[in-house]
């Protein structure tokens, strides 16, 4: 059984934000005006934060790219009143736009700020991607293919790429990866099956020290960070 996960090497990451841009392009996440950004009303599925410690001259800044953590024990799935957010059998936490009522409870519950609300009707309506044909046995209920305002959105680990690859029989993690992994110029990101001992992610996690964010929350994130 697959359990998709991601490993981000903080030693390699330069904080170039290419992953954020690739995510916005791939999933057609709308860009906001500076005004909206100031009010934090523009949606981000992926963000890069910088955490600094100490005072000049002994200051140290760490750059942390943050997609959705796709927790094994997700707080958002717990609080969603309408089963709009659910955890797929392969571990991806999805948002079903047909069911979402826009109550924003998941945004309150998420410890990673991974969820964004769509505040206004966007100009580009359809997603900028080829939708694969319906396979309900794989994906469950198909998410609403059009973006409308008034719903909560989140990172999907580019599930459409994974579905496509499964149908075409390609190798996931080497041939096909999410857009942010593909775009990373420093090859800091690796995507793959955490349960497969042969995979690159499992090899990295067994050979190097890694952390997950906010472990005290008990969410068991599937995005792991290799420390410097």
């Amino acid at each position, binding site marked *: 059984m697959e359990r998709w996960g991601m490993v981000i090497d903080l030693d390699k990451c330069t904080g170039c934000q290419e992953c954020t841009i690739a995510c916005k392009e791939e999933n057609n996440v709308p860009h906001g005006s500076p005004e909206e950004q*100031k009010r934090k009303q523009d949606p981000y599925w992926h963000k890069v*934060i910088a*955490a600094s410690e100490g005072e000049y001259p002994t200051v140290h800044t760490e750059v942390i790219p943050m997609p959705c953590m796709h927790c094994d024990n997700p*707080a958002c799935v717990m609080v969603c*009143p309408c089963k709009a957010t659910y955890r797929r059998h392969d571990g991806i936490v999805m948002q079903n736009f047909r069911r*979402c009522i*826009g109550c*924003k*409870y998941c945004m309150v519950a998420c410890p990673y700020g991974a969820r964004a*609300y769509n505040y206004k009707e966007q100009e580009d309506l359809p997603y900028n991607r080829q939708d694969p044909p319906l396979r309900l046995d794989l994906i469950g209920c198909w998410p609403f293919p059009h973006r409308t305002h008034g719903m909560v959105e989140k990172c999907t680990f580019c599930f459409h790429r994974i579905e496509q690859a499964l149908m075409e029989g390609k190798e996931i993690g080497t041939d096909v990866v999410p857009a942010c992994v593909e775009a990373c110029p420093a090859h800091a990101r690796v995507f793959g099956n955490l349960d497969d001992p042969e995979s690159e992610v499992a090899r990295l996690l067994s050979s190097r020290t890694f952390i997950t964010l906010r472990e005290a929350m008990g969410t068991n994130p599937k995005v792991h960070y290799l420390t410097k």
Partner: protein
Amino acid sequence: MELNFVSVEGHSKNYKIAVGILGGLFLLGLICYGISYYKGHYLFGSSNQIPWGMPIVLTIYFIGLSAGSLILSTLVYVFGQEKYKPIGRMAVMLAIALIFGALIGIAIDLGRPENFWRLFMFFYWNNMTSMFAINGILYSGYFIISIAYLGIILSGNKVWMKRWGYLAIGWAALVHMGTGAIFGFMAAREAWFSPIKPLEFLTAAVTSGVALLIVVLILTMKFTGRNLRKDMVISLSRLLIAFICILALLIFLDKMTHLYAPERQAVLYSLTGHYAWIFWCLQIGLVVIIPLAILLILPRFNQKLRSIKWIFIASLSVVVGVFFERFFLVIPQAAFPQQYYPGHIEGIWGTVGTFAFTPVEMLISLGIFTMVGLLFLLGLKFLKALPEKTAEELAAAAAKSAPPEAADTIKTETTGGSVNIPPVENQPSQ
């Protein structure tokens, strides 16, 4: 004491003007809601950092007032405190109007209100681990129970009044604890995460309920020209003092559990940061310090302060202050950025969230307020909730030669000669 209840005839100029103004503001709110539904929530002040805005503030405020005033009406109908009888019906009516306003507030905050029905597909399309879904049962049940309760009170069945009153009081307490749990169970929001939240909500609800009841009582008695019994108001104000003390203790405990633990930045910010004045001046000042000073401390030095006027001011201060308590909980306490990673988070992801008071959201909030007021006024007209004037009070009013429209507003069963309401419904009590 023979006590009859009457309705307002609703032909006076004042009543019509009040209904007209409230109706106009309600329509304005409705239009603004339509705009926000089509344009999106960017017209609101909320953001990804502060997800909930004024509609949720109003919702939890109204639920508090509603549960509080329903619990107090059971003082009359369950616990037999006959001295509060004149306000019993009005308290239940107010509870229904307020819970309706609260439900509308939730619906307005939803981004996709047309999917609202999914909340009520219990155990089927509904995720029952969500506090929202559990509260869906509690709120809708509460709405039905309080309407049935009003019906039973109007029908005058004493046995069922008492039985249903027990159900209503228990359910109202559950409703409020459930509302507190929505906030108290959120581990990700440091300032909200507290096991004491449900109890704090319940206490705040009862406190604001008592205060609202004193305000409504004094206003109604003045408006209808009835003699206000001072001992009743004094005993209610004693109740208010007790609840304020419990509430202050719970707030103190809540803040202390957060401040004592090492992870205290969010609460420390809320108590000392930009929005701290809302907590210290508007919440603690209006809910705790001013009422306790007026009701408890100052009368020891000046007996004149032990008057109905000052009790009215203290109660009004509590009613307003509890609103700011809810406001402080929902908006400023959510503003502090989450600690995704140890250290100081730079840039936009580490800044404190802002909340803009946008005209659309304010007009919608005003619309919810006016809708509750409108429901209450219509209830006064179509249900017999106001206590009838006694003979001597009528004589006193006539002697004072009150303005004609004020005297016209009250239709008593004996003099008004209403045809459509049979006299049996006008239950004499006791």
